[in-house]
């Protein structure tokens, strides 16, 4: 297990050399979200109008207002939910990711998500380039390397979309058939145990696809592979031939993510901000969590690069232990 731990540490070290990447990616995420947030803000503003409920909403979430707002809203604006307060926002998304219901969201959000994913395919190329070289990032170099890999990354993503689709279909089939097979079980604890095992399997499969996708990109960056398909196959082979290392770094980073989520739950802002200062502060605290999430993502990529570099026979210093 020292391999993955070392790679995870090296991944973090790689990120620390190119810290400004983190800022750039965070700003990209922030700017991308901003227009939609303005749209929702305007929609809330219209709903409140000159109503005294505006005052109430500074103290707490008025659930009656919220249902009135939701009943009257459509599309993206209608996705404001009480659970988005505090740590619930991230649990909601975790559930959406696990269940695949992320693809059943409002079409506007899915379109935004797809666009953002495209943008990410550009950004991550730049990020991988610098994570590998450790050079001081410049915007020109960042987008240069991003542009270089962009189309190959998009093709990898399309290939992976097929795998993701299969995993989600399998997951649905799995849970439906487990529900059927446990239909005479009267103890929730037993059913929950079975479902948790199944969930672990589904998460493992989702992570597996993610790993293949990551190593395909790593292979493209490190070996300048032209074929997305061959790179993906290389990803599959690498993951299968280094199961402990590849899974290990994901596990380490995943656990770190849960720790961060837990820490955030301790400081997560609630519903009571009633001044501009506290509203902005609450927003910034949440941004810290988002930055941490981004940092973990880059750490994982760095760790995967490190692992690949040390393990791949093509790499110069293949001293994988």
């Amino acid at each position: 297990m020292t391999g993955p731990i070392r790679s995870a540490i090296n991944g973090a070290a790689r990120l620390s050399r190119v810290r400004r990447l983190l800022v750039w990616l965070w700003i990209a995420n922030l700017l991308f979200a901003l227009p939609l947030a303005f749209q929702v803000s305007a929609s809330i503003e219209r709903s409140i109008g000159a109503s005294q409920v505006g005052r109430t909403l500074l103290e707490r979430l008025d659930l009656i207002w919220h249902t009135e707002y939701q009943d009257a809203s459509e599309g993206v604006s209608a996705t404001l939910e009480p659970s988005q307060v505090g740590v619930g926002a991230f649990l909601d998304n975790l559930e959406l990711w696990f269940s695949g219901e992320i693809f059943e969201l409002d079409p506007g959000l899915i379109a935004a998500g797809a666009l953002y994913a495209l943008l990410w395919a550009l950004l991550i190329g730049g990020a991988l380039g610098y994570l590998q070289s450790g050079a001081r990032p410049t915007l020109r170099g960042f987008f240069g390397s991003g542009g270089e890999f962009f189309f190959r990354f998009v093709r990898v993503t399309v290939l992976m979309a097929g795998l993701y689709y299969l995993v989600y279909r399998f997951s649905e089939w799995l849970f439906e058939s487990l529900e059927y097979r446990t239909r005479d079980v009267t103890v929730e604890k037993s059913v929950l145990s079975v479902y948790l095992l199944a969930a672990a399997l589904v998460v493992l499969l989702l992570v597996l696809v993610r790993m293949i996708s990551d190593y395909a990109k790593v292979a493209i960056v490190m070996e300048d592979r032209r074929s997305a398909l061959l790179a993906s196959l290389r990803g599959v082979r690498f993951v299968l031939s280094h199961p402990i290392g590849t899974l290990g770094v994901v596990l380490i980073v995943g656990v770190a993510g849960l720790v961060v989520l837990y820490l955030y739950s301790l400081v997560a802002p609630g519903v009571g901000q009633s001044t501009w200062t506290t509203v902005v502060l609450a927003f910034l605290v949440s941004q810290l969590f988002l930055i941490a999430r981004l940092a973990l993502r880059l750490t994982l990529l760095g760790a995967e690069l490190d692992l690949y570099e040390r393990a791949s026979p093509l790499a110069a210093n293949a001293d994988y232990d």
Partner: protein
Amino acid sequence: MLRRSGFRAGLLLAAIALIDPALSSAREPGGDVALSLRNANYEIDVRLDPEARLLHGRQTVVWRNVREAATDELWFHLYWNAWRNRDSTWMREDRYRGRSDRGDDVDRDDWGYLDVHSVRLAGGAELERRFAAPDDGNAADRTVMVASLPAAVEPGGEVRVELEWTAKVPRTFARTGFRGDYYFIAHWFPKLGVFEGDRWNCHQYHAATEYFSDYGTYDVRLTLPEDFVVGATGREVERRDNGDGTATHRYRQADVHAFTWTASPEYVELTRRFEVDGLPPVDMRLLMQPEHLSQADRHFNATSAALELYGKWYGAYPYGHVTVVDPAYGSGSGGMEYPTLFTCGTRLYNPFGGGRPEGVTVHEAGHQFWYGIVGNDEFNSAWLDEGLNTFSTGRVMHETFGANAWVKRYFRPPGTDSGGFLPVLFAEIRDPGVISSSRLSRYRNHATTDVPAHPTWRAHPGSIGNISYSKTAIWLATLENYLGWETLQPIMASFFERWKFGHPRPEDLFDVFDELAGQDLDWFFDQVFYDDVRFDYEIQSVKSVAVEAEGWFEGDAGLEFRPAGDEESSDEYRNEVVVRRLGEGRFPVEVLMVFEDGSEVRRRWDGQYRWTLLTERGPSKLEYAIVDPDRVLLLDTNFTNNSRRRESENRLPSVKWASKWMVWLQDLLATFASFV
């Protein structure tokens, strides 16, 4: 005007009750005083074959005609035939309402039926019988059976018939059925409809309807595997081991209109006695799933809260015992009322403060009063029990447990029906009212789906929940706010007292209001019950204008001209508030004006015309105005427009809530990016 039906079945029944010797004084052999007419009495002997999931039943029905007309027929409900095949009216409607308990995949063993082999007069000949479909003419429906008698049963006369039948226990439909070795058996035997003098009230089983029966005595012998723990309507009066691996449990209960039982080897039995000054004691028997034992206190506490508050508000619970059933996981039998027995419904994890299982327990315990003791016709007027009970549940919950925190259940496996396994309680987000925000929303979205006076069994599929439960509870809460609880409580108590062990109609409730409210409320019931009007009042504008002495005025020497002064220095303002009635519904409202110097003025408006202008001169400008500031009119379908500030303050709250949404969106985008 109230539209009233001419036929006063309820009063007739009450009148009969007064003259019926069996009611007023007679004592049963057991020595108990009859609380009801006891005109539909059942002795049932049933054996469960757990391998084949069959019930083999023999029953004797003694029916007395308590009406003023004769009848030569007996109409029976065969409820379980609703799940005999896909052609039943129940299955058709269930498909139509798109809320199938058990949608598409029904295995061979999952279907149910109630097959009657024989109906004969006691010791006599087999009776001719047929199936009827009085509601929709569906020739394939088998949920109503009519037996023809050789001679009419005259008013006051009695008939005794014997039936033999076999029933296939379904995998749960409509809260009855099996899961593993857990059985919940409701509405399971051939059961008489209610003879109303001119006809039998015996509707087919509909996907969204409940039940209606006369009161009587049930004496039931249940033969089951000996390791089964049994719960049933009434008290166990005898248990006999048969020496063949089975045991026979005999349960008996008088003055009820149904008999339900449940059996499972898993149940853990707990008991506690409800004792509160001024109310008769009640032995509470709780049948719990072992994995829920840590929640036993919560079930007892909620049941006690209902017994106490309903008892004090409406009238005492008379049976002395009640069985509280915690159904097996996934059994689908949770949250339902039966005489002296009800099911709750909890989950392995259910944080305290989120309203469950307390809410469902209070609600179903409350049905002992509204449904059990006051036995309205649920086929036609489900709102009479569901609405009154939903309102009462809200009051008990509010008084006992305070505001519910908002709960979201996570980990709902894709493609499954089970709700999330892992709840998260959002302690800061609370529902402070007697009527929850989600209930208000359900009503708002279906305010005009149905007219409540329309028979329930004909109602739109969504209306049971939204009209029978929500709208009724909301108009009752509105009446409480309008009349005061000190007026409403005696009205409901009188209605309860007058109609306990009877079959009230909607008009009977309105009559009690007429008598005791101290004012005519027809205008209200005409709107909320006999119509589907929407209520919505809004403050359209709030203005404060400095009072200026500009223009021509009478002076000492005739008309004098005064030039414009400095508006800012004015020390008097003319404050104007325009209130509008946007809906068709009319209700008298108060308007609260709050001024910048903190002073307040309340004005009343009869709410009749489309709008009104309220003006108030004073030294201070208006800060805001609210129509119906105390939220008396809970039926108002838009509370946001009920208030208006002179200068809007919506920027900061919008940014605040949009920024929270944005954080979620940013994380969502990152989640989308994880697929790259």
